[in-house]
């Protein structure tokens, strides 16, 4: 946390401004400032240092090193060879790699958009409906968030299996014609895994939105009702604007989860069938560890990182922007 750099924001104006007018009682001389009022003292950097060191060592450093590796043709074991931008050229031109990014965007629909919609719907129901045991439901719906993804993957692989409970259920209600090995099917594998993502993320969205709704003043709802707004109007006029920052947080977190998802896909399909569920993180893994193409893997990772930064930035800009400001 750094103090705001412009004076006067939030903090009260220091009362001890040097008084120059004659006749006023002389205050004891102030220590000479070498910084503007409100500007953080230099010693603050010392407090920041440990965190910064950690960040540099474990987050920023590896990022720089990965970028450096992406300029090499390296098998991970013997001496690498500098190849400049070759790996990036391959990332942009290889149809399989490009397709993997498209798969990621499809996952965003399932990991971010759907859960936000479901979360909003459930939150407005739970907030107004006077449901008994809200805490219980909230805990249950949040539960998927707390389970390790590998466990989630194994459970869903079982659910989606050709002789698994999903197909048994479909059979039971007379839909035997559409049963299949869901995650082995070219058309359904990615949506099937996407829905697992929806199941995992919507609980988080719900809890965020419920919390956000509690801080919306009830007077706003009363005012809306006095003005004759119905439930729907009230939602769009009061609830949604009030949840702007929660929306931004939920969308950012879920989008990042979608883009960097690896464990779920690796455990359930390993990117198959064919390349139907191959996402960039799976390509990074395959190329770095199986195929001995560490440079190419690093290039994919760098492009993925840039994409995540860009999307997170865009979401905060677009959603968490108070139009009245």
């Amino acid at each position, binding site marked *: 946390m750094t103090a705001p750099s412009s004076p006067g924001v939030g903090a009260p104006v220091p009362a001890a401004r040097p008084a120059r007018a004659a006749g006023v009682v002389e205050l004891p001389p102030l220590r000479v400032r070498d910084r503007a009022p409100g500007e953080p003292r230099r010693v603050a950097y010392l407090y920041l240092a440990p965190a910064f060191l950690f960040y540099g*060592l474990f987050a920023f*450093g590896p990022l*720089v*090193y990965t970028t*450096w*590796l992406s300029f*090499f043709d*390296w*098998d*991970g*074991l*013997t*001496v*690498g*060879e*500098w190849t400049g931008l070759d790996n990036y050229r391959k990332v942009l031109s290889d149809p399989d790699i490009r397709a993997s990014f498209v798969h990621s965007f499809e996952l965003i629909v399932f990991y971010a958009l759907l859960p936000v919609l479901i979360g909003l719907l459930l939150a407005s129901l739970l907030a107004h409906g006077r449901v008994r045991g809200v805490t219980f439901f909230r805990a249950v719906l949040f539960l998927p968030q707390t389970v390790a993804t590998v466990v989630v993957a194994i459970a869903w*692989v079982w659910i*989606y*299996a*050709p002789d698994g409970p999903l197909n048994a259920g479909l059979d039971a209600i007379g839909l035997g014609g559409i049963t*299949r*090995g*869901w*995650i*082995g*099917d*070219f058309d359904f*594998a990615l949506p099937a895994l996407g829905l697992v993502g929806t199941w995992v993320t919507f609980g988080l969205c719900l809890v965020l939105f419920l919390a956000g709704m509690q801080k919306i003043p009830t007077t706003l709802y009363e005012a809306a009702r006095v003005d004759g707004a119905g439930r729907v109007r009230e939602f769009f006029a009061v609830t949604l604007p009030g949840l702007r920052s929660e929306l931004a947080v939920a969308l950012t977190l879920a989008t990042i989860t979608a883009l960097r998802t690896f464990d779920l896909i690796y455990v359930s*399909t*390993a990117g*198959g*069938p*064919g*390349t139907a569920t191959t996402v960039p993180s799976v390509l990074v*893994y*395959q190329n770095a*560890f*199986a*195929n*001995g*193409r*560490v440079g190419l893997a690093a290039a994919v990772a760098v492009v993925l990182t840039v994409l995540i930064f860009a999307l997170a930035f865009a979401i905060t800009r677009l959603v968490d922007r108070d139009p009245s400001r």
Partner: protein
Amino acid sequence: MAGCGGTPGEDRPAAQQAGTPAEQVETDGFESLGPVTLSVISGEGSGGPRDALKRLTDEFEAKYPNVTVKLSFRDTASWFKQAKLVAASDKPPDVFAGNQGYQVDGELVKAGLVLPLDEYAKAYGWEDSYTPETLQQFMWSDDGSTFGEGTLWGVAQSGQSTGVFANMAKLRDAGVDPATLETFDDFDAALAKLRDALPADEPVIALGNKDQYGAIHLWGMIQGAYTPAQDMRDWIFHADGATFDNPGDLTALEKLVEWAEKGYMGQGDAFNSRNDAEAAAAFGGGEGAFMLGGNWNASIAKDGLGKDAAFFNMPPGESGKAVAIGSASLPMHISAKAEEPDLAAAYLDHITGPSAAEALVATQQVPAATDATAEPGDPLGRQVMQGWQQLVEDGGLTLFPDWSSPTMLQTMGQTFQEMLGGRLAPEEVISRTQADWEEYHAELAEG
């Protein structure tokens, strides 16, 4: 951030050629070492291979009470991806599994991560125990560029071939007598008959292709009916002029598509949602009349089907010779950083040599060492052994096609899945597979 700014890999000692064992290697007297631990990682974590290795490891510990063996297992598909990393770590296991071919073993040798075993081969007489064709699979030039000749870097426990597992009860019900299946065409006709006999939602052939190699192994048996085994071996060892683009391989791919379209492997792509071991368990549970796959699944089939489990080689095509994918099992290597390489070699000899025979046949496996003789006590074990011996006699082991380049397992695995899903023509599978081979062939030629 050591190495940042430098060329990656540079800071590693060029070749960890600590790798030369002492001129005079010790083959006994390990009691005098005092308490010592040997860490071992196997890449075959299920069925017979796991059970046999556990038993052999216990025996080794009993033989040398001062030695503790830390044995752990990984599943095959993920081990291929971890092996190089684990081997390159600061504290690698003393003994670990690799995989023949350029993806794993070639890289391990090139990076100097494993010990050359020539001295041990002399000391333990491995050159007499194994056929030249078996040892060839573990030989590399010291720079890892030439596969199939040069120094010996590993040994293996068992002969692993692919063949036909049959559920005899199902065959009897459908009126199919395996003794009458003399040619590949007979087998093909039997599949049609079984398709009619079995319920529509039950596959004739139990297949698991999630790991993307099940369909390749199955296809190898079809390929054997149309392509000579030597052509495939030449291709895998990167002989000049070898090619995957030939009429036999194309016909075999078209036949596989035909089988899929006729629903022999079940409806739709369901086989993509389970792996090899899971399919074996399903077959053991009574699904399908056949399972076309590796003999490493024999003990799973036997546990499930008991007396109804049978095994035989795919009936031959016009050549009259048995041909199928098969080789020695995953090679076991000694780490270049092993502190007691002589002890590690003694362990290798114990788990692969004559002393291993009993444990291997007891789990329906075939010892790779020819002097490891033991008679299997059960009919399935005998059939598995006969299948292997027939393939050896006919020169019909094609080895595994994915050995041919570091990326081939992925290339063939994906294209086969896409072909079976009706999304890629067999011609396209051939051109993409051959393109992968040629890219690596050029890389090897550059050095």
